[in-house]
């Protein structure tokens, strides 16, 4: 085996490390121009991601370095013979225990994060107490039901509930919770910018909480192949200040109880959301 092969095997770990390091600069990294996650939990998830990336990178680079070293030595020294060491007890122990320790460490390290994300007992109390909306996924749109201003969301629809489609408004800077449902098949509530993803299952009502940390319009997409229109199942989550959010609800209320007369007559045929944006 020639030295060219050593260079060949040296090239790949170097290329991998360089392209990973470049990824954020050329937009191959996280969504929305590699911006930091738009939720605090998301930032923690990113941290976990980077930790795993670091561990795997060290292992990858380390093993590749050993490989290149072995190749290099073998190619420059024709006299030395390789020794066959099948069943070396010490080696077997080393390469079982080290990955085992790493995996155990990761498993323990992320437990708090997982609990905060998924276990209702650890959800922020304020969010659990007052879910802001019921989100119903259906082929191929997202429907939202908010409680009336000053009231709490009930499991069953109420006469003064507020409704909207494909546009969910939430306030930022505080944890909010939604109740996720599906009307037909399995869908998945995915907020890439907030690193939130939860499947919606028919017959279940699944609580999902998140805390957006900055204003903006974020995509809500369906991450489950739910039918031919799956790719169209897209909505906007509009993260705004508490005041704007209350204003939105007020406008929605006005629209919802519109009787064809009165001051919103001018734009009555506009959708609910637009009336508030103008």
């Amino acid at each position, binding site marked *: 085996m020639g030295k060219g092969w050593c260079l060949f095997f040296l090239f790949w770990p170097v290329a991998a490390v360089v392209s990973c390091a470049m990824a954020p600069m050329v937009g191959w990294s996280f969504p929305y121009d590699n911006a930091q996650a738009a939720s605090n939990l998301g930032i923690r998830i990113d941290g976990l991601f980077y930790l795993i990336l670091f561990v795997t990178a060290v292992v990858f680079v380390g093993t590749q370095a050993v490989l290149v070293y072995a190749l290099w030595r073998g190619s420059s020294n024709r006299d030395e013979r390789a020794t066959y060491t099948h069943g070396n007890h010490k080696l077997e122990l080393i390469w079982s225990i080290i990955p085992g320790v790493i995996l155990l460490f990761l498993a323990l390290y992320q437990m708090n994060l997982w609990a905060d994300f998924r276990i209702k007992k650890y959800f922020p109390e304020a969010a659990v107490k007052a879910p802001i909306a019921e989100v119903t996924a259906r082929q191929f749109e997202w429907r939202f039901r908010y409680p009336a201003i000053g009231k709490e969301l009930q499991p069953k629809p109420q006469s003064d509930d507020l409704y909207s*489609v494909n*546009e969910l408004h939430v306030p930022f800077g505080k944890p909010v919770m939604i109740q996720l449902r599906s009307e037909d098949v399995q869908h998945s509530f995915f907020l890439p910018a907030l690193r939130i993803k939860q499947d919606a299952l028919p017959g279940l009502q699944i609580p999902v909480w998140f805390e957006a940390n900055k204003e903006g319009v974020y995509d809500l997409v369906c991450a489950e192949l739910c039918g031919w*229109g799956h790719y169209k199942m*897209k909505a906007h989550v509009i993260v705004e200040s508490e005041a704007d959010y209350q204003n939105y609800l007020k406008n929605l209320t006005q*629209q*919802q109880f519109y009787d064809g*007369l009165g001051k919103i007559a001018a734009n009555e*045929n506009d*959708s609910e*959301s637009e009336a508030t944006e103008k």
Partner: protein
Amino acid sequence: MRFGLSRLSLLLLFPLFSLTGCEQPQVNFVFSEKTNELVPEAAKPVKEALVRQFGNPFELTQFEGLPTDFGDVEGSVKTVQASSGEEKLIRFQVEGLQDAYPKLLGLPLEWTSGKGQGQISRIKEYNYETGTIAVDKTADIDPQPGDTFLVECTRLQFGRDLYNRHCMHCHGMSGEGTGPTSRYLNPPPRDFRQGIYKYTSTKPTAKAQNADLERTVKEGIAGTYMPSFKLLTDDEVSAIVNYVVWLSIRGETEKKIVDELFFDYSKKVVAERTSEDGGESREDVMEELKEYMELDFPDTLEFATSSVAEAWEEANMEDAVVVPETPRVPDTPESRERGRKLYLGDKTKCATCHGPQGRGNGTATQDFWTNPATNEKYPNRGLHDIWGNQLPPRDLHRGIYRGGRRPIDVYRRMYSGIKGTPMPAFGGPLSDEELWDLVNYVMSLPYSSK
């Protein structure tokens, strides 16, 4: 041979599967069944007239007098490329189309100056980058630098492209409601060619306002497969509606002229007329048809188009909208009780269809009804809409409001009825207060314990 011959052959067949799996959608407008039931001698001129006036999806045609935003864009010839003698196209560079829609292929181009003034060419090639257009070479078309022209239908084409991307797979290329996915849907997608839309803000006999259709596109229809297209921009939604209405106008025009001919020249009627009992010879009937086509058909066509266009224009007038004279009567137990009495009473007969409890199971759902179009009984029990679908009356307890859940939406459903369905208009018989009482009662049903 572990891989196995059968698997190998499957693998080899894969390209074939993938080719046959892609059904190419129809690229021409389809004609209605009724048109195809005419004798060929009558169907042919009808089809030709429709193609002349409306073109086809990939060769749209501008027709004056429709309430449609066709979207003309002006341009002028910059340079003409010398073409070899055998070339069938003339290519020329243009100015002024930089802001136009980048895809102008197939659109009509009307010459507004030069030798070909008044002539219409079809755009055979268009390169947005270089601003080059190619049209058919004819004796009259001889573009010179400086000649001006209009490219027609750019707005309509924009709407068509969006429609084909977002709506066509259910509603079909011609708006006939039979796109590739339609067979899986219940209720089936709407056939636009009758020009009737269920959920409008307009008076009982009026068509839909553009704004009504825009609202439907943006909000979707809860309880059906029509999803919300809220993420499209307002401009895109209005372009889609512009195109959908144009498809409706095309379909309605076709229906009107075919209805005129059907009575005398359908295959069935002609067969009867030329049978022994009928006693006419086929030559006589065809002679009569020829005369009709020469003398009366142009007027029929003109009248059909203009009356349809007028109806759409009127619907978009301000006074076409139903506006209650009194505000909503406060939603009190008393008002709901008055509403309940009306609901059960003889004045409205709501319970006949929607059932005494509002469960959608009134006695009318057990009867055999007559199809008003054919005067024959439907094969199934229950109510039907004009598109021929069986139509259960709404269960009022479900809290799903297809036409919108605002009080005004429910009011308008009662005032104007639901167009194309047996739900009648109560705008005359009931006073505003009575209507509001009914609205209050109906809207309370989903939350009542019963």
